[in-house]
């Protein structure tokens, strides 16, 4: 049996190695053709270049970078010259027009005077000076004026045609140049050159900055039959009081760190019920870009890869608040913390990815684990990590495939293992399965119309330690909860949603945060653009734990400044 296991292990390694094709000593044997290609590759560089030139024949012209620059410079000079000429021409034209206008005025005056002279020759009006002019003199002046006008017109049209000609030659030459440039091998640009530490790297934009910065503001106005909305809503970013709530002010930085890593950081500002502002580092992590064997490491502090919704930031949610089960098991702010995540992309034709996340199990963002505020009424006795056995381990597997051309499914299963704070050897396990399905029209305009359906079911096994002061004995608490939601983008910019929530009751609960509950939430969202939204949501809460119902209405609004972060599926 041992041998068999060993063989399987070897086989597994082989799969990894072969599919990555990274290890030459094996790959050489397997990839016969490739090794041939590399042989050819190792021909002297000069030869390929020669080939290139002959193959290109007459259609392509190689041009040296400096020559190209010179020509571009010349073209620019030409352009400036043209602009100057045009200005000059325009000013001259204006001058001439002014002259013409003056002459015209003079002519009219003269005509008037002449006619006046003709009609009132015998009775001159006192005060006006009169000029007597011969009829033939006047005709001569008028003729001159007309000739001048026609000359000017000729000049104007000549100028126009010349200008047009010049413009045309300029345009055609510019185009010719561009064609030549395009057909010539690309000039050495930072994009194709080799990297050096002093050179800026921009992975996702042609811009000049080293990182993208964005700011997202998420606010809500709430009305509710519950006096204290804070005991009804489980999320840290949910509307938490009647009136306005600043849900989330998030600044995100992201970009390539160097050829090996990309980095991202999300810093959150919030204003609590007392008007105090506070700051939270929600996420700050780097992701490896070039590990072998289809592996990837993410390290820093980040949302745990558990379930579907947990890694999403509040502004990307389809609802104004988070599902009850997420708030109860994974915590008001979601399950997150400092740690590292290793993931492996299976070398199959459809998408399957394995994750294993190791994080600290302490702090308020590890709600069901070594949280300073222990659950089930216990006093927290263990709040620190002692060794590897006290870390929070979260394995996850996820797979995705297309059902049809228009439908895609993403399935996942996760578990989180870690100690909790109620005793020395007390552990918590949260496990869950999740499903996301999306239909999007073949002819989608701006991503509409679409329908998504997302469901998560989670269970939690919590070993609650003995607390003799509170009179609580050693026991195991099993709880579960689920939500299912549908979003229907029925018209460009409009999305209608419906979510159902259920959580069972926790032992010793004193408010709706721990009671058994049903909740139904319809909503309607309008997106004026990709960068803003307005959402109206109604929550019907059926709290079985104390036989009451509550009604809440939220009006949520969001704006996004700065670069548009890419969406996840």
């Amino acid at each position, binding site marked *: 049996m041992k041998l068999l296991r060993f063989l*399987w292990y070897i*086989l597994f390694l082989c799969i990894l190695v072969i599919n990555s094709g990274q290890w030459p000593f094996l790959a050489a044997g397997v990839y016969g053709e490739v090794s041939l290609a590399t042989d050819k590759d190792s*021909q002297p560089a000069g030869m390929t270049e020669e080939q290139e030139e002959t*193959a290109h024949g007459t259609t392509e012209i190689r041009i040296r970078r400096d020559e190209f620059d010179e020509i571009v410079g010349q073209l620019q000079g030409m352009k400036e010259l043209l602009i100057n000429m045009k200005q000059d021409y325009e000013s001259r034209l204006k001058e001439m027009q002014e002259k013409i206008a003056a002459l015209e005025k003079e002519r009219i005056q003269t005509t008037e005077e002449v006619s006046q002279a003709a009609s009132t020759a015998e009775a001159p009006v006192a005060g006006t000076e009169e000029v007597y002019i011969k009829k033939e003199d006047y005709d001569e002046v008028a003729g001159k004026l007309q000739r001048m006008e026609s000359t000017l017109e000729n000049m104007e049209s000549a100028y126009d045609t010349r200008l047009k000609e010049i413009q045309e030659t300029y345009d055609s030459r510019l185009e010719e140049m561009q064609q030549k440039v395009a057909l010539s091998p*690309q000039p050495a640009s930072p994009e194709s050159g080799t990297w050096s530490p002093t050179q800026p790297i921009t992975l*996702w*934009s042609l811009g000049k900055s080293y990182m993208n910065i964005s700011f997202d503001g998420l606010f809500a106005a709430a009305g509710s039959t519950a006096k204290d909305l804070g005991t009804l809503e489980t999320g840290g970013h949910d509307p938490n009081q009647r009136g306005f709530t600043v849900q989330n002010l998030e600044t995100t930085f992201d970009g390539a760190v160097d050829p090996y890593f990309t980095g991202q950081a999300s810093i959150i500002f919030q204003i609590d019920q007392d008007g105090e502002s506070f700051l939270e580092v929600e996420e700050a992590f780097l992701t490896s870009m070039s590990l072998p064997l289809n592996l990837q490491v993410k390290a820093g502090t980040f949302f745990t890869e558990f379930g579907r919704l947990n890694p999403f930031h509040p502004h990307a949610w389809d609802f104004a608040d988070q599902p009850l089960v997420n708030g109860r098991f994974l915590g008001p702010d979601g399950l997150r913390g400092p740690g590292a995540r290793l993931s492996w992309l299976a070398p199959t034709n459809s998408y399957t990815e394995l994750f294993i996340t190791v994080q600290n199990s302490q702090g308020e963002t590890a709600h069901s684990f070594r949280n300073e505020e222990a659950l089930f009424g216990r006093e927290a006795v263990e709040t620190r990590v002692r060794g590897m056995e006290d870390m929070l381990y979260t394995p996850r597997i996820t797979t995705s495939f*297309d059902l049809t051309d228009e439908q895609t499914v993403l399935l996942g299963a996760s578990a989180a293992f870690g100690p909790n704070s109620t005793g020395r050897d007390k552990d918590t396990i949260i496990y869950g399965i999740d499903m996301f399905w999306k239909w999007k029209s073949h002819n989608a305009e701006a991503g509409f119309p679409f329908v998504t359906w997302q469901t998560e079911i989670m269970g939690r096994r919590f070993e609650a330690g003995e607390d003799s002061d509170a009179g609580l004995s050693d026991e195991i608490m099993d709880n579960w909860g689920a939500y299912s939601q549908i979003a229907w983008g029925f018209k460009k910019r409009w999305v209608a949603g419906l979510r159902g929530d259920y959580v069972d009751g926790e032992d010793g609960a004193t408010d709706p945060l721990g009671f058994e509950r049903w909740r139904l939430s319809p909503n309607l969202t309008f997106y004026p653009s990709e960068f803003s939204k307005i959402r109206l949501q109604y929550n019907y809460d059926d709290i079985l734990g104390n036989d009451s119902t509550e009604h809440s209405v939220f009006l949520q609004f969001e704006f996004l400044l700065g670069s548009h972060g*890419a*969406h996840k599926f």
Partner: protein
Amino acid sequence: MKLKHQICFYLFLLICWTSTVHAKLHVVASTPDLGALAREIGKDKVEITSLAKPTEDPHFVDAKPGFIVKLNKADMLIEGGLHLEIGWLPNLVIGARNQKILAGTPGYFIAAANIQVLEIPDVMPDRAREMGDVHPLGNPHFLLDPFNGKVVATNICNRLCKIDAANSAYYKNNLNDFVQRLDRKLSEWQKKLEPFKGAKIVTYHKTFSYLAHRFNLHVIGSLEPKPGIPPSPAHINNLIPMMKYEGVKIILTETFRERKTPEFVAAQTGAKVVIVPIMPGGVKGVEDFIAFFDYNIHQIVSALRG
């Protein structure tokens, strides 16, 4: 034990075989037009995957996890650039963990390089979005000018020759052939549209600026008041008399747009609605780059003649 050895051995062989099946060069193109150009150059030496569907709006493509697998196996990624794919491609590339398609490698090519970009907004970036969903780097629909297809094809050929030097003569031959065919067609199209030089047209979105620029059509307005903002009654009410006054003959719109507004405006102004795909493959049977322009130019010319 012996049997198990054998099973392992055959599994091993199977895995070796599946890995060698992918001896062809894998090229992933973000959009089908880029894919069509790559196909002209690579032909049967290259396997091409286009991520966006030819029928959908290329600004809003779902970042499906399946794309990660395709990018993971790619030898080359062709991206349009000018922020066309900014909403969906970056996370996929991170997820793909493929060194061959990172910036600075021959396997990562931005098609917008060396293109004369139109409509770069001339306002400060902080005000740019007042103009609607404008692209700060300029209009990204540059492949609707067939001339730019030549530029992009040439650059793709250069990259393929770098990645797969053994077949470079083959790629260059294909390029020469393609360029010759395209040149012939380009003058044919220009001749066809010559009688309509300066014809005034209205488009739904600012998609067709490059096409209009190449063939001397004059876009005097769009049904969208601003890029990405759906047509509003006020804007349409202003547009209709303007179109009548200017004698606009056609309203050019993409296959994925709603038809109601263009048809309403057409009925009011006597113009014709011309629905054209913006990607090869957007209409069945019109799969390659040249056939795509043949189709579109034919549609436009016959509407202008009408």
